[in-house]
């Protein structure tokens, strides 16, 4: 009797049907694919000057003077148009306001090819040095820590090249007109990141001087 039972058990099929499990997995995956996102949003740090009048007065006393040839003013207009003025504007001649575009062949090129009164292109030099620094960091077996990298990057942005040469840094004034979009502003800030420019300010067009207003009106910036 007992022997008969044992032989029967040996013949039993041990295969488990996985089809319901697969069904359930499919449902779960569909749920996760629809309700979640893979792309983690990025952020851009922006520090605006304070509106506080007391602080602004103090700033007036400690104002840093920048050489005219170290400054570029960007005017962001409607329909993704952008204009720039290199150095001080010439209020008599509206042709100092030149049109350009966003991106690699536009602002990036303008900044890259901007020559200061010392006869050098600081943005291009700093960018080249940053590329070397990045290569050193990403090199196989590199021992550079994140802090070291950040420290060197900070120095670069101040214009201290690893060769010991000191280059002037650029100052950019971004003036988005009321007709510009938020995307335009972010694109302009993006260019600052790409060109390693630390000194930039978003200026309020309503508060700019009458001369500037006349100039951009004459140059057809809108």
């Amino acid at each position, binding site marked *: 009797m007992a022997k008969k039972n044992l032989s029967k058990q040996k013949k039993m099929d041990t295969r488990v049907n996985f089809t319901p499990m697969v069904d359930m997995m499919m449902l779960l995956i569909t749920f996760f694919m629809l309700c979640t996102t893979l792309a983690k949003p990025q952020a851009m740090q922006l520090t605006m000057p304070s509106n506080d009048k007391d602080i602004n007065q103090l700033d007036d006393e400690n104002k840093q003077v920048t050489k005219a040839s170290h400054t570029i003013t960007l005017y962001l207009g409607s329909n993704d148009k952008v204009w720039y003025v290199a150095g001080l504007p010439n209020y008599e001649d509206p042709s100092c306001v030149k049109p350009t575009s966003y991106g690699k062949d536009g602002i990036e090129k303008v900044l890259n090819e901007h020559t200061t009164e010392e006869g050098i292109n600081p943005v291009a030099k700093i960018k080249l040095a940053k590329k070397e620094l990045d290569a050193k960091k990403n090199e196989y077996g590199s021992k550079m820590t994140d802090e070291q990298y950040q420290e060197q990057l900070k120095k670069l942005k101040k214009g201290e090249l690893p060769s010991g040469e000191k280059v002037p840094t650029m100052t950019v004034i971004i003036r988005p007109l009321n*007709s510009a979009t938020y995307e335009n502003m972010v694109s302009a800030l993006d260019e600052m990141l790409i060109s390693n420019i630390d000194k930039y300010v978003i200026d309020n067009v309503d508060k700019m001087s009458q001369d500037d207003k006349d100039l951009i009106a004459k140059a057809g910036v809108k």
Partner: protein
Amino acid sequence: MAKIKIQKKDIWIDMTPMSDVMTLLLCFFMLTSTFLTPEPVSVTAPNSVSELKIPEQDVLNILVTPEGRVYCGTENKNNMQAMLETMTDKFGVQLNANQIKHFREDAMVGAGMSQLANYLSLETDKMGEAIQKLGLPLDSINGGKSEFQEWVTAARDANPDIKLAIKCDSKTPYSAIKLLMSELQDMNENRFQLITNLDVKRLNN
């Protein structure tokens, strides 16, 4: 003539490898993805090369739609409750338990204080529609702070470490964001995170 023998064949398919793959995929999705944060209005952020990550906690999200409507909220429900209490005390608005329950279910505040009670009395499925036509008022009350500024102050009181993250649609006119930023600057909130999407194409160039 040859006889067809196919009929006798067993059609059992082994699902084990398929199940293995599915488990792997499921694990991958569970570990790498984050849940979509519910937003009253869907907003497309502009692209940038910035690779900074936004912190997951202590963030006050400020949402700006293309029409310039402003919403704000934080992921911490207790902070939200504290903010609501500060605001209702200040403006003398009475809310019943059901309205507070609706408030807690909502991800962001978008109704002005005068409409808040009405809005929170709506059915849950109608709230989503109604909020798209609302938005926090940005004009100052009797020369003082605006309602939006009051909400930010309340958030700052509820959590002193809170950081401001502005998520704005790329098509929003600059005048709307200028107004928002100058309101924040007026109350000495000068540091914000602008939420953007990573522009991989530009980054690799």
